[in-house]
């Protein structure tokens, strides 16, 4: 039995977590399995992700909207990448993970395009996550820090570096804006 105690104003709030659980657990496992390649580790990552999701549940307005889907995948991806790094002690560049490890969705599956959206989608995971949380979902730096398990100062720096990296990519692709 999943049991939870709530002290809430409406029934909508109580059902949010179970909607998230039912709707996204398979997707979360898909993302975690792909990054970790180990069933037990993936379960740890998904469980930790649900813990983080509970912490930000009040910020989720519509559990079924694309922004929520994005948030769930970002949290799972970040948790799985961090766990992968911890378990395998992988040395990764400071400014983000290599593309092959970083994307739960698999950047190799994203169609090759030469535009701004494609450049954002192809950024290293940490950068993409921070930019989508800020500019698509509208979260504050403090909220992003909580979701990505980093300090607020680190979140701010990550966003700055992500913007610099995006500008570099756009310049290389000669995309004007």
């Amino acid at each position, binding site marked *: *039995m*999943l*049991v*939870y*105690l*709530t*002290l*809430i*104003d409406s*029934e909508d709030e*109580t*059902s949010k*977590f*179970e909607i998230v*659980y*039912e*709707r996204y657990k*398979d*997707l979360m*496992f*898909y*993302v975690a*399995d792909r990054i970790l390649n180990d*069933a037990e580790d993936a*379960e740890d990552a*998904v*469980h930790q992700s649900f*813990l983080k999701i*509970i*912490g930000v*549940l009040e910020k989720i307005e519509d559990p079924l909207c*694309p*922004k929520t*889907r*994005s948030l769930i*995948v970002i949290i799972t991806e970040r948790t799985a990448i961090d766990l992968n790094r911890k378990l395998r002690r992988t040395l990764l560049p400071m400014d983000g993970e290599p593309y092959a490890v970083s*994307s*739960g*969705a*698999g*950047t190799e*599956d*994203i*169609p090759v*395009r030469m535009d*701004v*959206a*494609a*450049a*954002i*989608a192809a950024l290293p995971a940490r950068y*993409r996550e921070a*930019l*989508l949380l*800020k*500019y*698509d979902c509208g979260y504050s730096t403090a909220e992003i820090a909580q979701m990505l398990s980093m300090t607020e100062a680190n979140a701010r720096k990550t966003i700055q570096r992500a*913007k610099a990296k*995006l500008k570099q990519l756009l310049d290389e692709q000669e995309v004007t*804006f």
Partner: protein
Amino acid sequence: MDAMDELLYRHAAEARDLWLGALPPDELLPERPVSQRFARRMARLLRQGRRSPASNRALRYARRAAAVFLALLLGAGAFLGAAEARAAVLAWARETYGSKVLYRFTDETPETLPRYPAWLPEGFVLADDFQSDISRSLYYVNDETGKEFVFDYSYMYDGTQIELYNPNGIPDPEKLTVNGMEADFYPADNFSMTNYLIWFDEVRNTVFSIDSDLEKSVILHIAESVDLEDSTKN
């Protein structure tokens, strides 16, 4: 806001759709079996949620509401005897909605006293203790057998509710009593993996539960030993 900010606001949603579009659609995602360990950990997530900032804020809100309601109750008490007034407002209700059951509470003045099981099965020790303003979870484990149980109690503030969720559907509970108090027992199934006993102290406005892989008779024995005394903590 600089040009890069404007660019990001304009294209972030498209980037998100492009990135998420590389994932398989939900209907094509493989259904993944999970281990018993994972299922149990999911079942404990409530204890994490209780300590969230959201629940603390909600508690403050509920207490404000409770203060207003209490004032109304005191007014009503002028016309009703104490026992009648109490009976008029004392309330918990069980509601079923397919895969979930809600126990709703509408009382005002729980006695916030510490409770412990005075009897433990042999070999069990207290391994963890989570506490919030509205509830407490005591986690006991037998390291030799791997058996465990979680004893919870929560104060029945107005607006509090306990939700049981099981995607397989929630069966009607077995109606029991614990020291004369009404209790519902839900046996383990292939989702929950554990037996669940919930009972209600309508005098002190506290709801108790035990979630465990122990047998029903043992769970009941533990439940019947619950007391105010901290006789087993050490």
